[in-house]
């Protein structure tokens, strides 16, 4: 080759390799492109880049490209040579091993590169021509590293933004949209509905008895149940629908495009609701147990004539959710395990409910309740005991029946103070009329204990404290609880009842037969008496089925040495039926209606 040709060759090598530096911002790819070209152009057996970086488990602090660098005798030797070379103050070095020549070059501030050529060495003139290229390669490597750093920073920032977004709009436990996200989606849906002329629906879904499951089986089971329910609810909906978790055991579902008229929308919404209820027909299998639960679902359709056009979209959204909530409340406090479509009268009821709650606060503060008493009689009609019953006449609302204000009081928690007021007032009456009990005119007066009261942390101590305050005989007072209260948590109930029974304070099981108690528990509860529910007593003389049930209850009570009290006797025929059944007492309008305290006092005082 002539000198001119040689010069041209050197220049072309430099040019060709230089043009193959920096062809990509990804470091691996950039180096791969350069190495591939170098191998071809310089007739190399192998070309490897080594980066200065800590390497786990190795003494040498060099990584190498390509990453799948094999560990064998030659490669391990080469790594050691490169490591030694890196410590030297030289830009290039050559090793001969067997038939191969290994040329090492430094890549400043990055690492080193090794070219392996077999049989024939590379001319010094060519080697010299390569040196400037590695300065350029070093710059390109740094650019790639900076670029990668930037890419990583952007990636991290996006990840943080995504996490923040999730935290802002997502429920942590279930991954569902949270209330904020739901509100955004609902408002968007309301706008679309106006434009498209399609109906939509808001479902307010409440998990029945969730608090009981959480309290008895633990929060981890409760969480698992919620996650399980979430995945099952998702199977009931379409991708465009929004299912959100808005509270402990509360979900809201937004259905869009479910029909161009109300009837179709109702049909479609009903199908979805039925599908959801099917989820809880069987028990839910969790990791370590299976639980029974159900849904109470309130449904509000939109567009709705009740949503005034004067309302903003945000206000309309709030009203819709409220409507669905009202419907859910209604179903939850009637039958549970079902669904109800919102209608205007529910709103009225809800408004009434809010008023009741407001007025209850005032009444409790002003102590404006009244206590009525309904006497219990024996089969001969002689008064033997009485039940204390709260009555309320409000100056704004008028007479408000217990069936209306007791549930409100229970839900709002006011029932605890109301129950305490009833207890204190009854104890006061007993204390003022000890002679009734001493003389045997009355055996006891009973007070009703609500579920909320019963589950209070210091219920036992509170009862005993009040009794001690009025210094009354424990046997003159009895506590009535419903089946539901006892069965909600049977173990706790037994414990509470035993604690009070130890102080000669006894319990009566009210409305027996109307709930879902297991008869096997009946003998475990430390009861004094059971009160047969009115539903079995009404027209018993004409109902053979009820007769069988009632006689069974009487038989069981007798077997367990429990007093049997019959509630709700209103006719002569009903009285006649029980005349020879050996019941301990009878209660009902046929004998006495609940009476104001003054009338009751006068009644008892008149007994000889």
């Amino acid at each position, binding site marked *: 080759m002539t000198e001119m040709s040689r010069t041209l060759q050197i220049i*072309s090598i430099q040019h*060709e390799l230089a043009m193959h530096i920096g062809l990509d911002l990804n470091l691996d790819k950039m180096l791969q492109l350069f190495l591939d070209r170098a191998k071809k152009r310089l007739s190399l057996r192998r070309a490897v880049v080594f980066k200065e970086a800590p390497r786990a488990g190795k003494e040498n602090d060099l990584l190498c490209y390509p990453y799948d660098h094999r560990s064998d005798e030659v490669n391990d030797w080469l790594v050691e040579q490169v490591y030694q070379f890196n410590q030297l103050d030289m830009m290039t070095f050559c090793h001969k091993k067997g038939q191969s020549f290994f040329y090492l070059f430094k890549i400043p501030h990055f690492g080193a590169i090794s070219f392996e*050529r077999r049989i024939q060495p590379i001319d010094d003139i060519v080697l010299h021509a390569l040196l400037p290229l590695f300065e350029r390669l070093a710059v390109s490597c740094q650019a790639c590293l900076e670029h990668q750093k930037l890419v990583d920073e952007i990636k991290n920032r996006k990840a943080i933004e995504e996490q923040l977004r999730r935290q802002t709009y997502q429920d942590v436990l279930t991954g569902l949209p949270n209330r904020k996200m739901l509100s955004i989606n609902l408002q968007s849906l309301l706008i679309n509905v106006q434009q498209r002329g399609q109906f939509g629906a808001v479902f307010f879904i409440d998990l029945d008895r969730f608090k009981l499951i959480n309290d008895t089986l633990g929060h981890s089971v409760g969480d698992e149940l919620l996650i399980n329910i979430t995945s099952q609810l998702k199977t009931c909906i379409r991708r465009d629908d929004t299912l959100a978790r808005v509270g402990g055991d509360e979900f809201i579902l937004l259905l869009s495009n479910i029909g161009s008229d109300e009837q179709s929308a109702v049909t479609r919404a009903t199908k979805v609701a039925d599908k959801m209820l099917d989820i809880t027909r069987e028990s839910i299998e969790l990791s370590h147990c299976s639980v029974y639960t159900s849904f109470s679902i309130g449904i509000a359709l939109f567009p709705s004539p009740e949503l005034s056009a004067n309302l903003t979209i945000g206000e309309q959204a709030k009203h819709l959710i409220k409507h669905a909530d009202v419907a859910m409340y209604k179903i939850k406090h009637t039958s549970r395990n079902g669904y109800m479509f919102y209608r205007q009268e529910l709103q009225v009821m809800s408004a009434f409910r809010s008023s009741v709650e407001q007025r209850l606060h005032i009444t409790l503060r002003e102590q404006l309740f009244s206590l009525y008493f309904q006497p219990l009689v024996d089969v001969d009609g002689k008064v033997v005991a009485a039940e204390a019953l709260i009555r309320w006449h409000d100056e704004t609302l008028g007479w408000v029946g217990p069936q209306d204000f007791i549930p409100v009081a229970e839900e709002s928690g006011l029932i605890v103070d109301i129950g305490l007021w009833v207890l204190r007032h009854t104890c006061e009456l007993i204390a003022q009329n000890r002679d009734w009990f001493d003389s045997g005119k009355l055996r006891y007066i009973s007070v009703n204990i609500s579920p909320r009261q019963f589950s209070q942390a210091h219920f036992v101590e509170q009862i005993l404290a009040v009794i001690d305050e009025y210094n009354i005989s424990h046997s003159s007072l009895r506590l009535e609880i419903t089946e539901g209260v006892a069965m909600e948590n049977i173990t706790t109930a037994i414990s509470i009842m035993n604690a009070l029974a130890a102080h000669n304070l006894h319990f009566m099981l009210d409305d027996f037969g109307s709930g879902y108690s297991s008869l096997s528990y009946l003998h475990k509860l430390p009861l004094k008496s059971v009160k047969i529910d009115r539903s079995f007593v009404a027209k018993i003389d004409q109902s053979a089925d009820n007769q069988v049930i009632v006689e069974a209850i009487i038989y069981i009570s007798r077997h367990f040495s429990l007093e049997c009290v019959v509630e709700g006797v209103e006719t002569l025929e009903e009285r006649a039926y029980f005349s020879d059944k050996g019941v301990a007492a009878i209660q009902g309008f046929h004998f006495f209606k609940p009476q104001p305290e003054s009338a009751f006092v006068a009644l008892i005082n008149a007994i000889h």
Partner: protein
Amino acid sequence: MAVFTDVRFTSDVTVQALAESVSLLMSSNPKGIMLLCTDEAASWGETFNLWVNKLKVPIFGGVFPGLIVNSRFEPKGILAVGLANDIHVSVIENISNISPHSVNVSLTSSSVHSVVIMVDALSRQIDGYLQQVLYSLSDDCCVFGGGAGTLAFHPQPCLFSPKGMHQDAMLLVEMTTEWDLAVGHGWEVLAGPYLANKVDDNRIVELNFESADKLYQRVVEEHSSLLFDEHDFFDIAKTFPFGLARLDDTVLIRDPIKVDEKGLICAGDIPENTMLYIMRGDAQKLISAASGAVRNTLVNMISTQHMGDCILFDCVSRQLFLRDEFTRELQQIHAELGQHHRLVGGLVLGEIALDESGILSLHNKTAVTALARVNAEERVR
């Protein structure tokens, strides 16, 4: 022990003829079969697949424009060669579309001494896959082979393996046989070098910042009496290939096979910013180079080693250039080997060879002769 247990040639290119040839071949107890066929075999399809499923030894091979049997050139036929040593055949499919870096190419055994590669000549990314194969090789492993297909340049199945026929694929045939390679082309520098400043894979767009086809046309017409306007492009271009200068002063040939409005299309990739020469050749120099390479290889064989059978992958472009003189090339190569040595092979579209520097390249217009290495005490005829 000879490397070939038997060699069977028939000019009838049908699966039935193949079955009969192989049936006769099997009586020599081969451990594998190399099958080289001409164009007509490309249409065998399912018939071949059904036949090969029943074969009890591994088979590999391809469809080529012509076959070589000793010093004879056969434009049509089936050449079945029984192999005495174990082989392992693997197939890499869909090589044009799957990145070579995403495929794990690895040899099955550490006792592999050589790898024969056959590839669909119309596939892309051939060079990338060759580099992946190179990376998995041990230092003393020999690699050679060629591109399969027909001069119609029509995509169709052109490779044989135990699984059937393949296209857009690469066959890797691992062997325990050791080979020495003789690689020679005989083309000489006519003009240049020129900077290939703009390239698109195998298309040269610009040379020295000028339209590549214009520069090429001007230089070639200056040095020959032929005008491109009056002849088919390849009729002239086959005499004036490009050459890539390498550091060891060898030249890698690149065959310009077509010209279009975008540039010159070559058989094989052209790296951008490389220096290219325009080459020329004549029949005598080409033939001398091919046979001379064989001679040099024989001379370099160490005394304890001897040559056995041989495989020749000769570029179809050389046959098209040499025409009647091509038989003389075969005769001279065979003469160097010795008439008592068997020489089989085919015309290939691109030649694959690992040179002594350890570079695995796809060559054009080159003759690659593989000489099987046998020890003196093993040499039996």
